[in-house]
């Protein structure tokens, strides 16, 4: 499980705390130079980005430290519902059931903030001659009862490699898995059994890297030089689209998904400020730098 924890602390933290304590004892109002922390937990897809934001925000607002950890969208949502984080990262919508739980926990619905997009890339081995694939074909490959099991079924021959398509997928409660099921496999359908269910976005890419007959899906941010990213079309007759910032923004690339911050209905002002900064031009610049797709700025 790829859980990364980044702690942002400045040298003055302990001094500040001591000062704050002293002020508190002397009965003064709480000093604004208090070290405020924001717990930011969730999506494995977004963890690199969330960390970059946290680091950059240190320069903007030294008094606020953002502590980021990954684990998966489900972990973030669970933390939100348990009240152990201020912001949950999620690469999928909150399910109705989870919204209900948030309502009972906080008395109101959890707030949602769109912070960027991620193009879901389809990866194959570098030696694979395939250049593009349609969502229809992907569905036949991944869906339970789908008709495509061999590379020759979609007219591909990889020299010196067994014909079987090695399907690489994600564990069944990851946000990426949920999105892929909804967008490609079919909302009410299930995955074909026997797919290799990797436990992290990065593991998908490294397995495809070393397996000539493999196909897998993962965020475009995890692209390496040793794998091939396919162009994707909606149906077989549509033009195949390269996953880029432009094609994601104008929605021609068919499998891009939004990334969200979820927060309790009422949050402290420093959290609101952080969220405002994330969607500001400055915060959105980092989105593009990290290989994700920023919000359209008007």
């Amino acid at each position, binding site marked *: 499980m790829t859980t990364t924890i980044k702690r942002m602390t400045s040298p003055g933290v302990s001094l500040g705390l001591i000062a704050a304590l002293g002020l508190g004892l002397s009965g003064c109002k709480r000093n604004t130079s208090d070290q405020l922390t924001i717990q930011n937990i969730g999506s494995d897809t977004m963890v690199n980005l969330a960390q970059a934001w946290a680091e950059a925000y240190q320069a903007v607002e030294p008094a606020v430290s953002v502590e980021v950890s990954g*684990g998966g969208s489900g972990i973030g949502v669970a933390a939100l519902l348990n009240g152990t984080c201020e912001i949950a990262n999620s690469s999928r919508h909150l399910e109705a059931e989870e919204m209900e739980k948030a309502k009972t926990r906080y008395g109101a619905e959890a707030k949602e903030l769109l912070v960027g997009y991620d193009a879901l890339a389809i990866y194959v081995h570098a030696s694979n001659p395939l250049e593009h694939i349609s969502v229809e074909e992907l569905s036949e490959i991944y869906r339970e009862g789908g008709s495509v099991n061999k590379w020759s079924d979609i007219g591909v021959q990889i020299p010196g490699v067994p014909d079987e398509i090695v399907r690489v997928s994600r564990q069944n409660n990851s946000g990426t898995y949920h999105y892929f099921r909804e967008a490609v496999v079919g909302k009410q*359908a299930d995955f074909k059994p026997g797919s290799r269910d*990797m436990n992290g976005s990065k593991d998908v890419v490294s397995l495809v890297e070393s397996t000539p007959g493999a196909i897998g899906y993962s965020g475009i941010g995890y692209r390496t030089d040793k794998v091939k990213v396919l162009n994707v079309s909606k149906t077989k007759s549509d033009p195949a689209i390269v996953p880029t910032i432009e094609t994601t923004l104008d929605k021609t690339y068919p499998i891009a998904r939004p990334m969200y911050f979820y927060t309790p209905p009422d949050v402290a002002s420093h959290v609101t400020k952080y969220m405002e900064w994330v969607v500001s031009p400055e915060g959105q610049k980092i989105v593009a730098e990290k290989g994700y797709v920023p919000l359209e700025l008007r």
Partner: protein
Amino acid sequence: MEWRVRLRTGRMLPKDEKMRAKRSIWKVAVEKGIEVVIHLCGISAIVFVFGILFFLAREGLPLLWKEDTTFSISKFFGSTEWYPTSMANKRYGIFALIVGSASVVTLAMVIAVPFAIGAAVFVSEFCGPKIKETLKVIIELLAAIPSIVWGFIGLTVISPLVIKVFHVPVGLNVFNAAFILALMAMPIMVSIGEDALKAVPDGFREAAVALGATRWQMIHRVLLPAAKNGLLAAVLLGVGRAVGETMAVLMATGHAINIPFVTSDGEFNWLWMFESVRTLTATIAAELGETGQGSDHYRVLFLLGILLLSITFIINFTADVIVKGIRKQI
């Protein structure tokens, strides 16, 4: 026994009564306190085991008598369909996971047992003290490698090698995981096996040599039968290690719901060791973190935990029975 007698008679002496009187209440209290602590340490193991059992049962068992659920115990054991997060039709069949665990552990033991016993014999009987020390250090080093590192080696080093050497579609498979598990289980098997061989009295060896046995005959006919107990314990501990291993198998098996022994045409698959599988432990590790507390999926994962506990309990219990049986024969 002697010390108890002395203690008891000692207490009767008037001199001792005086000594007791001299001791401060504080010291007596401390001693009593320590006694209680040691007592607690003794029974804590039992408390923990029952605590864990209770916790597992409390989290897992309610599902068995829940009304509105797609879970059923016959499908739980009999079905290969594991779709705990499906939107349309949630299914909880773990047959494929059991087969996956069993196939990986069996192949791991087939690889590890001959090597481990061979290594134990070599270390205890053949090599000189210098080589022995070096070998033991290196073997123990194997045990010091964290399992996530083994998994990483499986994913990035062994997987491409397996594809290249055996010309199979995927390198994350039963063989890859079994190979890693064999290496992981080896250190404990070698060191316990070596202890077992060392425990055979030298008189046995001398008698065998005196009767004209060659070194090989001595090992084969005298040492191995005499150390049977300890060697069996070594193997079973290795099995226990392999069944419970999680992180390395999660990464090296491919984590795919699959019965490796059957081909898509329904025939026996002779190349089963090159199929991806999924184990019980890896499923819990991959899914428990993100399930809602108290959901059916959550409870099913705890049932898997209960099943794993039962399996290891049965292994240990059989080992105990066998070892005791052998002891009686001797």
